[in-house]
């Protein structure tokens, strides 16, 4: 049986880049615990050895520009300047 607690939730929220509000912390801890308890049934499944695993192949195309739509994409930027996306400073000013 999987244990899942608030500390783990906060750790996950950190990994996911997803700050949580107080009410979400309480609610999600319980809900995710229930979800993990449900999926735990898979741990007991015996894997048959006569079935090959799923195979995937890469499908690639030439790495060449097909469209010139820079202006349309830049227009979606929350802030742009001279053809660049503008973001806040990476480091705080000290």
């Amino acid at each position, binding site marked *: 049986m999987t244990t899942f607690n608030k500390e783990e939730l906060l750790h996950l929220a950190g990994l*996911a880049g*997803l700050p949580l509000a107080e009410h979400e912390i309480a609610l999600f801890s319980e809900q995710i615990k229930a979800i993990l308890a449900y999926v735990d*049934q898979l*741990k007991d499944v015996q894997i048959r050895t006569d*079935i090959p695993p799923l195979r995937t192949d890469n499908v690639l195309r030439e790495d060449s520009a097909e469209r010139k739509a820079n202006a349309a*994409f830049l*227009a979606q930027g929350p802030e742009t300047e001279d053809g660049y996306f503008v973001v*806040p400073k990476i480091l705080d000013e000290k």
Partner: protein
Amino acid sequence: MNAFSTVHDLKRALEQKKISAAELHAFYAERIKKYNPQVNAVLETFSEKPKNDTGLLGGIPCLIKDNICQEGRTTSAGSAMLKNYKAPYQSTVAKRLVDAGAHLMGRTNMDEFAMGGSGEFSAYGAAKNPWDLSRSPGGSSSGSAAAVAAGLTPFALGTETGGSVRLPAAHCNLVGMYPTYGLHSRFGVIAFTSSTDQVGVLTRTVADNALVATTLSGQDTHDATSIPLAPKNYMASLTGKLPAGFTVGIIKDVVDTEGIAPEVRERFDASIKQLEQLGAKVKVVDVASLRYGIALYFIISRAETASNLYRYDGSLYGNRAKDAHNLIDMYLKTREHGFGSEVKRRILVGNYVLSAGHKDAYYNKAQLIRAQLRAEFEKAFHEVTVLASPTSPTLPFKLNSVLDDPIAMYLADYFNVPNCIIGTPAISVPAGFSPEGLPVGIQFFGPRLSEELLFNVAHAFEQATGYYTKTPAGFE
């Protein structure tokens, strides 16, 4: 013609010049204005007049789910995160509809990023079921289904990752198909679970569904997972009869599982009898790993969600939180305020099942059982022509009944997620009504690329039963 005319009826009326494309546009625009406040199915209606009345769908209006890019239009995926996002390019499915002469009239409501089974996780309010406004139309293609059912459009595009077209089709007395993975292009469809996401069509009849699928068919080189096939005319597969030697396999879980509502079971049993009268042989088939479908889907879809939704950080497009004091702070605040609760829950579970120490037990194990499930399905189709189950084990949800109980909502897709995980097709078709008049659906599953077979079987069933002719009260 009337508001509940099929695409085929409208095509005929247009061809015979009984109505013009411009008049059709005005007719549906007026209906959306009048009835949408009741059902909240349509997020935006475009005022442009139709340009073309030639082609397979010449002059036929349609609506498109809000996670499918329509060039120059807002495409918000039901999320506050993309509230002001305007698609800089056209999705392949939208392009193919336009090429076939269809008139794209607007975009429809949905669960945020297509995550949900009730439509209630939309950032723009829940869509309502025209058959009972106190109930959900089913999700995540909630608005597409509600709009067709209320006669606000003759057809709509939805998307399905694990039930999101078939569940609302069943709850709204419509036809909806999950095609073989790779059959319809995903280019320009906002990603959620890339290994199962597919576009599906919501229509009143099987023939309409086959017609729209025809216009979407054929490989798209912009989507690396698109199957290299030439365009296909699915209309040619509708014979009106079940194929020779047809055997329907009832999935054993339908017989065994508690939790199927009695009204749904009654309709399912009656539908199987109807198929027998049409000449079908019936067998019960055990697909042993099907019972793990929901758990497999949880793991696979949450893992891919965590990966696909990491891109929403406020840098290049979409919402950006104000007042961030540095870059990381901007990422965090944008995500905190841009995503709703269901999306957050899924991202968190996805990070859990992929994290060091858990990946083998969850994600890798799920991929092994996925292969097993596929082998079992393939084996079943050596015994029977198609498999069958109720589309949803329950009647349409009462609004607010599953919001705080995610597992109850997920279990509604018990019969819908297994074939999505292995990328094989299934079609839901109306199977009649509960005593209180709520729609129930039955679905048929076939092997990979068996769309012609499924359209034919569903069409034969539909023509013998005719449930699609009934329409919801109050939307005349």
